[in-house]
């Protein structure tokens, strides 16, 4: 096993899947000659040619729309959205066309739409978004967001092989900061399965993406204070691993829901509802959300730091629950 970055793991998954299955192809803005704005697709066009690694116009509706059409013909398109914020430009194609297609006429849409999400890099309002809850209310879509290089590769492979449309959110803060052991052999991380990143008996921090590291740092600090926090990495946001969520809450009786998207209408609300409906008897304290402030994503570093969830905010929320 080699230690590689989160970004390299994504690239490996693309290389592997394109070599494994000739129906897989990549399309998006600057993905070919340039290798993508973040160099995720670097070398792909040299290896597989311009017909399978397509540089498109700046046209998210055409990118996703033509991916849908090609999937009807048996292809397995992987569409890159240069910054995931721009997925809003293809919102109609995803929510109205792709998500409903199988339900309407039995026509599956096996496409992957992937792109860099998340803040912490001074990207401002249009290069920092976490759009998962835009799509959470749309049956027919699947969504994943890996936190490790291992999962980045395994989840992308699973997404490409999935028979339904999968939105694959890759956190740009993790691209080159995270490295871990990734098998060279073929493997998938199944969609819909969460992973426990740290065991603990006193409270659960349920999170995903880059916030897994915020949660782990907070858990370290809490341990210094004698509180053992469990960290659950959801990995898949649709479908959610309800069993893993309910298990950890049953074990610890306290839950902090942590996500980088803004608070109101975020996925934390859905998680709280699941816990409230199905694990109420286990709870010893209120369910608490820690999320970004309800504003657009601000640009200047001190503002963005105030906007994003922090280790301090998570520790404070956890302490409130433990002392409840």
């Amino acid at each position, binding site marked *: 096993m080699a230690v590689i970055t989160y970004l390299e793991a994504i690239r490996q998954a693309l290389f592997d899947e394109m070599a494994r299955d000739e129906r897989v192809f990549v399309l998006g803005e600057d993905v070919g000659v340039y290798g993508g704005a973040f160099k995720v697709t670097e070398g792909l066009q040299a290896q597989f040619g311009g017909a399978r690694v397509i540089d*498109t116009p700046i046209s998210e509706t055409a990118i996703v*729309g*033509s991916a849908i059409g090609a999937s009807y013909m048996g292809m397995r398109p992987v569409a890159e959205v240069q910054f995931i914020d721009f997925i809003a430009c293809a919102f109609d194609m995803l929510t109205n*066309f792709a998500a409903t297609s199988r339900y309407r*006429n039995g026509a599956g849409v096996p496409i992957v739409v992937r792109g860099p999400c998340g803040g912490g890099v001074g990207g401002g309002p249009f290069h920092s978004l976490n759009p998962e809850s835009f799509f959470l209310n749309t*049956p027919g879509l699947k969504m994943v967001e890996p936190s490790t290089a291992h999962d980045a590769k395994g989840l992308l492979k699973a997404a490409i092989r999935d*028979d*339904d449309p999968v939105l694959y959110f890759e956190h740009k803060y993790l691209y080159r900061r995270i490295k871990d052991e990734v098998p060279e052999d073929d493997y998938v991380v199944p969609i819909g399965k969460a992973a426990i990143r740290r065991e603990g008996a006193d409270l659960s921090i349920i999170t995903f993406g880059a916030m897994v590291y915020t949660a782990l740092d907070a858990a370290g600090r809490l341990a210094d204070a004698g509180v053992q926090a469990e960290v659950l990495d959801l990995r898949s946001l649709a479908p959610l691993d309800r069993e893993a969520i309910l298990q950890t809450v049953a074990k610890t009786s306290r839950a902090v829901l942590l996500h980088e998207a803004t608070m109101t209408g975020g996925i934390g609300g859905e998680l709280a509802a699941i816990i409230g409906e199905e694990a109420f008897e286990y709870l010893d304290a209120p369910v608490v959300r820690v999320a970004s402030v309800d504003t657009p994503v601000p640009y200047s570093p001190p503002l963005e730091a105030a906007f994003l969830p922090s280790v301090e905010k998570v520790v404070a929320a956890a302490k409130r629950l433990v002392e409840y």
Partner: protein
Amino acid sequence: MYYFARLARDIEERLVILFRQSKVIGGLYRSLGQEGESVATAYALRRTDAILPLIRNMGALMTMGVRPKEIFLQYMAKAESNSRGRDLNIHVVNLPADGEEQPVIVGPISMLGDSIPVAAGIALGARMRGRDLVAMAWIGDGATSTGAFHEGLNFAAVQKIPLVVVAEDNKYAYSTPIEKQMAITRIDERAAAYGIPHEMVDGNDMLAVYDVAKRLVDRAREGGGAALIGIDTMRMQGHAQHDDARYVPKPLLEEWAAKDPIARYSRWLVETGVAAKQELDDIDAMTKSYAAEEARLAEESPMPDPATVARGVYAGDDFATPRVELVKSPFAGS
């Protein structure tokens, strides 16, 4: 072509009866006056090509061989309809496997314009799979104002995709006249910015429409890339049956009524001796009784079981299959 146009009209007339009996669920959208161009454009395709019709392209669906019963099942929201009662009217999908002698059919969604990028993707995907296929997508004058139309057409142009777009100027988008839709007078000029061939044709002259369509379809098949046909025609009724279209000036309707495409084509057939009046009358009787019989069969079909409501959202339970029943016309091969 005469048979398909007649059949399209008779199906819709039968649907009007069913609509008045409250057996059609939701709206009913007529293509009265547009059956000719719809048939004549699709007639330029091969049976294995792809079509992306809109609500007023009943003629294209008939030309590609969709069994009329499929249309009635859809309009009456029946359990055995192509969408299993989940979606409306002509929103049907047929996705044959490679090598099957069947058309690809992808019905519209109500966000008109979205069909164009999807059509581009179908033709692109077919090309990648080595499948000989031309995609034809119809679009109304109103929907040519959407971003999806422009993005799809531009992408198809850049990629030299075998896509023929049929842009139908039927003078009104719901109640909005064309001059409030675009500042150009010829709808085919929408394509000028994308560097692809575009031609305007009298949409009520079926032979003229067929000629243009055949030329541009053949060109696309030979690798010439995307093209757009502008159709000059008239929507002879309201947007849907509930709409009395009082916003349309009467003289305009009278002018176009005199140019009815089916009457015009039948006159030409008789005058040139291609068909005898009696033969056409026989076809009229045939399509009328066929439409009535197909409607009757569809009426007998059950409504969906409410217990199935949550099925088929994701892969795995194989609830619906993207297949419609196809039939050969009685004149096939002649």
